[in-house]
Each structure stands twice: as C-alpha cells, then as structure tokens.
C-alpha cells in the first residue's frame, strides 16, 4: 500500500501526550475557569447601535457618571455598535424583574436617557440569575446524556471495547476543547455549549467511520491476524476520507467565523478547535484504547 503510515507505532506516545495535555488543561481550568457569558450568570446586556463611530470610553464615562460604574462596555462588531453588560447584582436590575413598570422606570428608557442620543437603537437581553444556574445544570446534563447515548449505541452496533474507546476519545475532545476555550478566554455562553455538543457529535461521527472500517477489515482475516496491523490498515484506508471531510467542515466553519457575525462567533471558533482535536482523537485515541483493552476478532465476530 503506498503511503502507508504506521500510526499505531506512535500510539503509546500519543496516549501519553493526550494524558499529559488532559491533566495540564484540567489544571488550567481549575485556576482560570471560564469566561462565563450572560446566559449562565444572568444579568443584562444591551446592544446599542449608533449612527456614527463611537468610542468605548465615551460610553463608559456616561455610564459611570450615572452611577453604573460596574458596567462592562465594549465594541460589538463595528465601531458603531456598543455592547453594555450589567452583572446580575446591580441594583438597577432588581427593578427589571418586575413586570409592572408603572412605578419603576424601565431599564431601556433609563439607558437611553443615559446615553443621551435619540438616534441610537438598542436591544436588551435580561436573564435572572436562577435561569443562568439552571441552564448550566441543564447543559452539563445534556453533555452526559449525549455521551451515555453514544456509548450505548456504539456498544450495540460494535462492541463494548470499541465503545469505551469512543467514549474516552469523546471525553478527551471535550476536555481539550474546553481547555482551549478557557486559555483563549472565549466567552462561554449557550452557543458555545451548543458547539461543544456539535463537536461531540462530529467527533463520534469521525470515530465511527474508522471503527466501521476496522470491523470490516477484521471480517476479512483470521483470528490471529495482528491487531495493530489491521487497525493501521483501517486508519490508512479511511485517511483520505477523514482529511477531506474535516477539511470541508473546517472550511464552512471558517466561513461562519469570518462572515457570521458576533452572535455565532464563538460557535465557529469552538467548532474549529473541536474538529481539529476530534480528528486526532478519532485516529489515535479510540483504537489505542480498544487495543489496550485487548481487542481481537472474537469480540466483533463471536464464533458460536
């Protein structure tokens, strides 16, 4: 076979490398944590679109003068768009939670007054803190459910050693991706979480393609054929497909990142990281783990 690469030769190195980077990332996560977005912390976000270029300092000064000094101000896409974030503990937000606004002034009006510019348009998002905590819980649950579902499916379609391999590959992807998100200080909000789940789906998709080829190749040989050789052949055979698909998906995510606008930005970046990490894990981790667990032809084609 031309261009035959002995992938499995490097498997010990790969496992060690993954293991160490996993630990490294977890340490970083422990100390740095995530830049949690408003979806999970609660609070108020206001997008203001000006008809002219406006500086962040100009807006911040106005807010501070009006006793809103803990507001975060930043540009949002273009220099005419400003994003103002108020953390959930601000006193002004207590009024926001009340539906009847006859006595209390509405936050939108207040901010418009403060910004003193009748030509701007604003949009607001307000999230009470309980919703934020709930979403975080639901999000973690969704990830567990996804991993569990995948484990059951792979176990039923293939067998349990490969299922374990697939799950460990997936967990590896989640940890490394989450680590990258933390290191690059990407905002972790609901779209980011959606991207992580999409990465899970994509990575398992990739892994299953390799596993499928392994199963098919096992079928062609007798029981004692070297496992490592089969796996190597399988990976080599699927390599061009793996690279092509990763490349195509990567292309569309890069397009999304460049042209998709602020809202889906962190979705695109997370996907890009996830695809790269996921491709690596599909090649190395899933099968290496299965080998380590003692995979052989019997497992896939039990003789009665």
């Amino acid at each position: 076979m031309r261009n035959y690469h002995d992938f499995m030769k490097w498997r010990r190195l790969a496992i060690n490398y993954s293991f160490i980077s996993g630990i490294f990332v977890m340490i970083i996560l422990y100390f740095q944590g995530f830049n949690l977005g408003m979806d999970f912390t609660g609070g108020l976000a206001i997008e203001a679109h000006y008809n002219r270029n406006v500086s962040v300092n100009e807006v911040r000064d106005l807010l501070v003068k009006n006793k809103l000094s803990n507001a975060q101000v930043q540009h949002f896409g273009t220099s005419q768009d400003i994003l103002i974030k108020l953390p959930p503990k601000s006193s002004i937000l207590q009024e926001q939670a009340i539906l009847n606004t006859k006595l209390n002034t509405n936050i939108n009006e207040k901010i418009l007054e403060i910004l003193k510019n009748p030509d701007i348009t604003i949009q607001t998002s307000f999230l009470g803190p309980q919703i934020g905590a709930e979403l975080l819980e639901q999000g973690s649950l969704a990830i567990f459910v996804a991993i569990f579902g995948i484990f059951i499916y792979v176990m039923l379609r293939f067998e349990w050693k490969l299922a374990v391999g697939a799950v460990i590959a997936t967990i590896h992807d989640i940890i490394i991706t989450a680590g990258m998100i933390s290191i690059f200080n990407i905002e972790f909000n609901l779209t980011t979480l959606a991207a992580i789940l999409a990465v899970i789906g994509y990575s398992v998709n990739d892994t299953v393609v390799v596993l499928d080829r392994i199963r098919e190749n096992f079928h062609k040989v007798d029981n004692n054929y070297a496992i490592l050789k089969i796996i190597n052949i399988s990976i080599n055979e699927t390599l061009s497909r793996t690279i092509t698909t990763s490349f195509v998906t990567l292309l569309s995510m890069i397009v999304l990142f460049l042209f998709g606008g602020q809202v889906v930005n962190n979705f695109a970046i997370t996907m890009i990281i996830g695809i790269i990490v996921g491709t690596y894990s599909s090649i190395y981790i899933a099968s290496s783990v299965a080998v380590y667990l003692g995979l052989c032809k019997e497992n896939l084609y039990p003789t009665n």
Partner: protein
Amino acid sequence: MVNYELFKKLLVLVITITGLLLAIPNIFSEEPVVQISIARSNDKLEDKLQKQVTNILNEANFSFRQKYKNNRLLIYFHDTEEQIRGADIIKAYLGSQYTVVPNLVSSIPDWLQNIGFHAMRLGLDLRGGVHFLLQVDMNTALKKLEDSYEEDIKIRLRKDQIHYINKQLISDYISEHSYGAMQIAFDNKNEKDKAYDLISKNFGQLEIKEYGDLELIVLLGKRLVDEKKKAFLQHNITILRNRVNEIGVSEPIIQREGEDRIIVQLPGIQDINRAKEILGATATLEFRMVEEDIKNNFSKTYKDQHGNSIILKNSSIVTGNSIVDATSGIDQHSNKPAVFISLDDLGAKKIEEITKNNIGKYMAVLFSETKTEKIILNGISQRNVSHIEEIISIAIIRDQLGKDFQITGLRSLREAHDLALLLRAGSLATPVEILEERTVGPTAGRVNILQGVRVSIISIIVVAIFMVARYKKFGLISVFALIINIILLISVLSMLQATLTLPGIAGIILTIGMAVDSNVLIYERIREELKIGVNPNKAIVIGFNRAFNTILDANITTLIAALALFTLGTGPIKGFAVTLSIGIGTSMFTSITLSRMLVDILINVLYSNKKMLKISI
C-alpha cells in the same frame, strides 16, 4: 425489477419536487402594515372611513397601498419607519373607537396559504419582538388562600361555640409549609375532637394534624395545592392571552413552561414598554357602600384622590369578576374621562337590589392594585408586596342602577383606557416575575436574516469549489444534491412550522459541512475500489452500498448529540437542535438516494453507448 427501479426513481422525483414547492412560500417577505378595525368588534368599517384615512395619509405624502379584508382595513407601508409614523397619524385622527395596530404581515398570496403552504416561522432574533419567561408566584397566592380558609374556620368554630386560641406557628412548620398553616389550641380534649370533626367535615380538602393533646394544626392538603397551582397557572395564561390580544400582535406565543412558568413571545412588537405595562398590571375595581355607622369596627378607612379619608363597608357589592365589558371614553355630562361598564346577570341583580334599597346614600368605587417591589435588605433580595387602594369615585345613588352604568373620577383618558382594558381582560391570579427578557429591534432582525443568508451562500460556494476540484463531475453532483438538501430542509421546517433562529442558521451551515461527508464517504470508497481494479460500474455499486452502513452509524451518533441539545434552553438553541436534526435527516436522503439517482443518470448520459472503462473521480 425494472418496475421497482422506475418506481423508486419516481418516488424520489416526487419527494424532491414536493419539497421544492413547499419551500417556495419562504421567498415572500413580510410587509409592515397598519391594521384598522372598530375597537373590540367585528363590524364592517364604514366606506367613508377608508376614504378619510387615505386622504390624511395622502396629505402627509405617504406612499402606501390598501386592502380591505375580514372587516379590517390594512394599509401597507414601505418600511417600518413610515409604518410607525403612519400609525401615529391615523391613531391621532381616529381616536379610541378604532383599534389601530402596527403589524408585520406575510405577503404570501391567499390562495397559497389556503392550501397549507406556509413560510418558516422566524425566531425573535430574526424578526424583532420581545420574549419573556415569567414565573408565577405561587406562594403569595397560596398564602392568601390559606388566610381565607383560616377566616372561614374561625367563623365556623365561633358559630358552633367551640372556644379556641389561635397560636403562633412553631418554626418547624413554617419552613416546611411556606404558605402558612394554622395552629389552634383548645381547652380540653373534647373540644379538640369536636373541632377536628367539624373541620374535617366542612373543609375536606384541608389536612389536619394533631399536635399534642390539645392542639390541632391545619394546612392546605397536597392535592388541593397541586390543583390550585394548576388553576393559578391556567388562569394567568388565559389572562395574559386576553391582554396580548388587546395589544394586537400577530402570532403571539403564550404557553406554559414547567410547573410554574409561562413563556410569552410577542413578535414584531414595536412599543415594548407599553407591552410590559399591559401584561403586568394587577389592578381591579370594587363597588362598596360608604359606611354610615362609625362604630362599626369591621369597616376600614380609605383615601380618595383628594386625600380625604372615607370609611367604606367591608363587603363589596360587585367586584371586577362581574364585569362583562368595559370601554373608555368621555362622559357626556361632565366631559371627563369615564369607563363604561356592563355587568353580568348576577352582578346586575346585586347592584339593582342594593341601589333600590339605598337611594340617597353614597356608593364608592374602590381601585386596588398590587405592587411587587424587590428591595435589598442586608444583602438579601426580598420581595415586598404592597397593596394600593384608592377611592376613585363616590356618587349618590339617585335611582336604581342596572346592568350598564359608568364611572368617572379617572385622571386621564389614558388611565380610563388602561382600566377598561384591565377590567375586560381580568386580573392576574398571582404576582408574576420576569425571569428572562429579550428584545430585538425589527431592523436588527432583518440584518440578522441577511447576514444568515449571506453566510449560507458563501459556505455553499466554498464547499462547491472544493468538491468539484476534488471529485470533478461527481463533485458537481454532490453540490447539486447539497442545494436540494438545503431546500428540502427549509421545506420541512416550513411544513412543521418549526422556528428558525440565528443559531439555527449556524446549524444549517454545519449541515452543509456534514452532508458533504456522506458523499465523500461514497466517493472515496469508489476510488478505493477502482484502485484495486474493480470495473467502474461495479465500483459505483459497491461504493454506495458499503458506505451506507457507515453513513447510517455516523449520522445517528450526531443525531444523538443534537437530541441531547434539544432539551436545553428556550428558544435560540432549540432552533439549532431542530435544524441540525432535520438537516441530518434530509442529508441522508439527498446523499444516498438522490445522489445515487443522479450518478446513474450521469453514467447513462456519458457512457450510454461506449463501454465504461474508466471514470474520473
């Protein structure tokens, strides 16, 4: 065998064409209109009204079209700015007898809509509008319920001459039962047993516990609580729905979320403050006689609008619940803002009776409102519920009143309008808190759509270039299949009336990337087979067949992740899960079945007469 093949091809063709047709309604955009109708009635509009409205609009140099449909006059404007200005002018001219509401109306021709062709629903982030997640405060309402049971029990015990002492509730019970409980002590065991029997006979839904020898603790039973919670939630949903109808938004969404939450979505709404005011109001009216016996301890004092204190009897003759209709306007005699009220039969009877027997005496209209304030005390946020009660009008009963009458004493026409609205729609059963609120301006919505469409197109082009470069003619087939895939995706979304959001568009982009994967799997397999020397025809067959299993496994695992995502959040992310899941389905169809058909056609076209020795892929 031949027939089966033909049948399959026809089926694929039919599905594809139906899909394409179902997607067509989405080409039609939404137009800003102003809807004019007679307030709260479906009567025909007078012909001259149409002329009057068109005249004033023409004078103000608006360019517009009009349509008369379902007893409503619809004025179509060019953009939302003109729409708002036009709405203001028309409203000022017509006054409050007419409902003038700005709205976004789909421009799909009627005949299409009638056969069931609809466009996709657009989420708020693509359309503009406001989204609320509301929490119903069950505790306050249940506490009120408990209090009223307490009153009734005390009256009953007194009537049967059972002596009791109402004690301070012990702390265990307070924490366990946050809506309160009643602890009563008796003189001896006999009295206690008598009370136990009395209470369980007359108040069966309550739970009674014995506490020591001489005391009873009475609480709201679990079944009662569950029942009441459901009732409160349903009542609030109904009231909110009535109020939303008053605001006049098209396609509002009001639905329950979990045990004690309500989602309210008002797409296209322009005046958000007004919407919040209308949704959140908790005011109501009561009619009471003025107390003449100053020694009556049960009567309470209230203030009127000038600050005078007046004592009213405790019992109300008629409350807001009996009000069947209420409109606002100017009272002929006094030229002041007034609310015109119609009572139901029961209320009318009561009013007739009381006024018949009390001519010459004073009757007051008591306006009460519940306000919820959140204050921070010692770093803990607490809710402070305050009741405002004010006498808005007192009048001498000159003669017997009947079903219809009016009340004056409101400060402005706007106040009269709001009160009339409230009385019509009913009052909320419990206080309601906003957990989540998102507003999106209409222009932002449109910007988002344009951006979404742009990204999708660029994405398709980029992927197309790559696929054709790598797989040549077969790449072209996969691009064609991809485009049909997206169109089918749109038509399924339209048919299911699922909601498309901005993350949903990201889901479509992801589908583009992953749909291509299935084709890649097939083509790479074909390449492999060709390499070993299998003849092209067979290679194609093997490619499609062998790849099928892999594609199935791979797509199902992605589907599992998408479904897990479906449980998260309300709104935009759900949109992503939906588009991804549907996208997986449609891409399986287009990549396997449709592509196969197209490849067959391609082969027939290219190699119909020659023997196929080699194909470029």
